[in-house]
């Protein structure tokens, strides 16, 4: 479903992504973890071409994302993206945030888009918040609206860039629950996260990155109990022992 081949990217003379190769099959869930500055966010942002790459190829559902001939706008409708800082549209209600792209990009008619939007927001526990503006919502609610907004385009894959990092601790679980319920629907997902318990619980593979490289890819049972690289061991000893 997502195929990342030999991706390279530099900022100036700093290599931010080096020889990245990754295969994610349909319905698989991958967690991208690693220390800050490892290139996790950069990598996930290259998958929908929010970041350009210097070399290599990224193929999502058969579409080469960085090919100049690709209609990137059409390709992006297949890829849902959830940001760390939500990036909701502050002048639109929760429901309008969810319906604006289906109406304008997919040319869905208003009533159909609204019906779908209401269904998605209800599914994420926001049935009483249709008409609320983002500023009237808590961080956790805002992030769930953002998830509904991404789902409204019927994406084939979902990308989450640290979806809980900007949240107060008591709100993290409501967002993780939403992602859990999405996992049950068989959605293909890549999640950049610092929530190790969550990664362990729902992910098929843990991708550990450091210094712009993928250091280790392993199933969570193996990765968390017996990582094969020193770099991963060092990282885990820092994040797990508290």
């Amino acid at each position, binding site marked *: 479903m997502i195929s990342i081949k030999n991706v390279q990217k530099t900022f100036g003379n700093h290599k931010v992504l080096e020889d990245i190769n990754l295969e994610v099959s349909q319905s698989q869930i991958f967690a991208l973890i690693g220390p800050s500055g490892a290139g996790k966010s950069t990598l996930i942002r290259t998958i929908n071409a929010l970041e350009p790459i210097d070399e290599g190829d990224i193929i999502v559902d058969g579409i080469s994302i960085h090919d100049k001939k690709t209609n990137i706008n059409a390709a992006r409708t297949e890829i849902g993206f959830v940001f760390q800082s939500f990036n909701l*549209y502050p002048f639109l209600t929760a429901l309008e945030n969810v319906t604006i792209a289906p109406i304008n990009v997919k040319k869905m008619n208003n009533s159909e888009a609204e019906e779908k939007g209401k269904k998605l927001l209800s599914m994420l526990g926001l049935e009483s918040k249709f008409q609320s503006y983002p500023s009237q919502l808590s961080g956790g609610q805002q992030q769930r609206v953002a998830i509904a907004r991404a789902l409204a385009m019927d994406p084939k894959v979902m990308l989450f860039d640290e979806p809980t990092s900007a949240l107060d601790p008591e709100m993290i679980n409501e967002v993780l629950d939403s992602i859990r319920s999405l996992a049950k629907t068989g959605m293909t997902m890549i999640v950049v996260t610092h929530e190790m318990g969550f990664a362990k619980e729902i992910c098929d593979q843990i991708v550990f990155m450091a210094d712009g490289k993928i250091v280790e890819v392993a199933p969570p049972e193996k990765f968390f109990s017996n990582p094969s690289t020193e770099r991963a061991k060092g990282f885990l000893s820092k994040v797990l022992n508290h």
Partner: protein
Amino acid sequence: MLYSTDWSVIPNNMGLFLKGVLLTLEISVLALLFSIPIGIIVGLLRISRNKIVSFVATAYVEVMRGIPLLVLLFWIFFVMGQFLRLGPYWSAVLGLATFSGAFVAEIVRAGIQSVPKGQMEAARSSGMTYTQAMRLIILPQAFRKVLPPLASQFIILIKDSSLVSVISVVDLTLIAKNLVATSFRSLEVWTFVALLYFLITFTLSQIIRYFEKKYQVSE
């Protein structure tokens, strides 16, 4: 000798004043209407990634900001107007619109750039084209942010419109000048004219304040 006031000159010439006010309003509103699309287009071109496009837009803004409006009006009326047969009225509208448009462009550019980058990213990642993202997501937010500076710019435009009297457009200022020349009632006439300009601009700023409140979603 003390100046003895005689305010009868005002009611006796109310028709003339009204005509002047109407023409001032007409020219200002036309210039305003043209300066908005000029400002939006030039403002958008200013932030274009195409270097030539942004250079041309920047050059326009710099030239317009660097020339006094009075000189620009003379130039349009006496130089360009001779070729294009514009006449005083359209020379005035064109001069005010192109002049004000440069300032509106700067306001629009600042407004767009004040919208957080994540808004464009969110819009683009949902499949919107750059143009759709601008129109549906960025400009509506930029518009709310630029209402106060835009209001000031439009008030300046109305006041600047008094300069068009020098290219013989019979606006409020020229009517007043002519009236003073015939009646010698400079205190009364100029005081009243100042009041009229104030009423126009004050009304405008109240209208804009209304829109500011209306669009003020708690952000």
